[in-house]
């Protein structure tokens, strides 16, 4: 379910947004806390709609939340 080429900045962004907890973020994007844990750990690659919801929650473009390995096509 995970993608080794996909990295994310969710943990950093959470702390920059008033020490937001995983549960608070999960409630905002309408998923379970376990899903946020899995995404942060790189064990689960979220769907495109969920990735957009995460980016909008932090008020940043999606590229600042998720980054795909530049060496991969």
């Amino acid at each position: 379910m995970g993608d080794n080429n996909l990295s994310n900045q969710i943990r950093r962004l959470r702390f920059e947004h008033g020490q937001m907890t995983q549960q608070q973020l999960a409630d905002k994007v309408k998923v379970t806390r376990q899903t946020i844990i899995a995404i942060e750990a790189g064990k689960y690659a979220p769907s495109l709609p969920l990735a957009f919801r995460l980016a909008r929650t932090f008020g940043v473009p999606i590229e600042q939340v998720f980054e795909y390995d530049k060496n991969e096509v």
Partner: protein
Amino acid sequence: MTQKEEAWVGLFLGVPMLVIPSAVAVFIAYDKGLSFAPVLMFTGTVMWGGFLWFLPYIQRKFHKDKKKIIFDERDQLIHKKSVMASYVALWIYFVAACVTTWCIVGPNGSISVNVMPLTLIGGLVLFNLVQGLASLIQYGRGGEHGR
């Protein structure tokens, strides 16, 4: 109840619920010689299985905090993969059952009709078991650590 907890319940409650009536069916069929018993037990097993499938819906109906998300896209994906794994296991089981019977009895031999519902019960048990295990393995890989 989280989806992971439901998977554990499915494994430790669902499988015995299927295994116990199946075992009773085998006992009655071969001890008393009642040919209709396996069919009745099969019906009972299906009913128990159906009840188990309804458990999460019943639990959600009476859940106090209905706004809390307990099932999302990741759970959906895990469930889909688990069911897929169960179907693969089920097909392998049925092929193995057919081939084994053919090898034991031979092309011109015959078997009791009781074997058919019992084979179906075995398939149901296997389906439930593989689904529970596959769900737990996938949830385990998801990573429960972190804050």
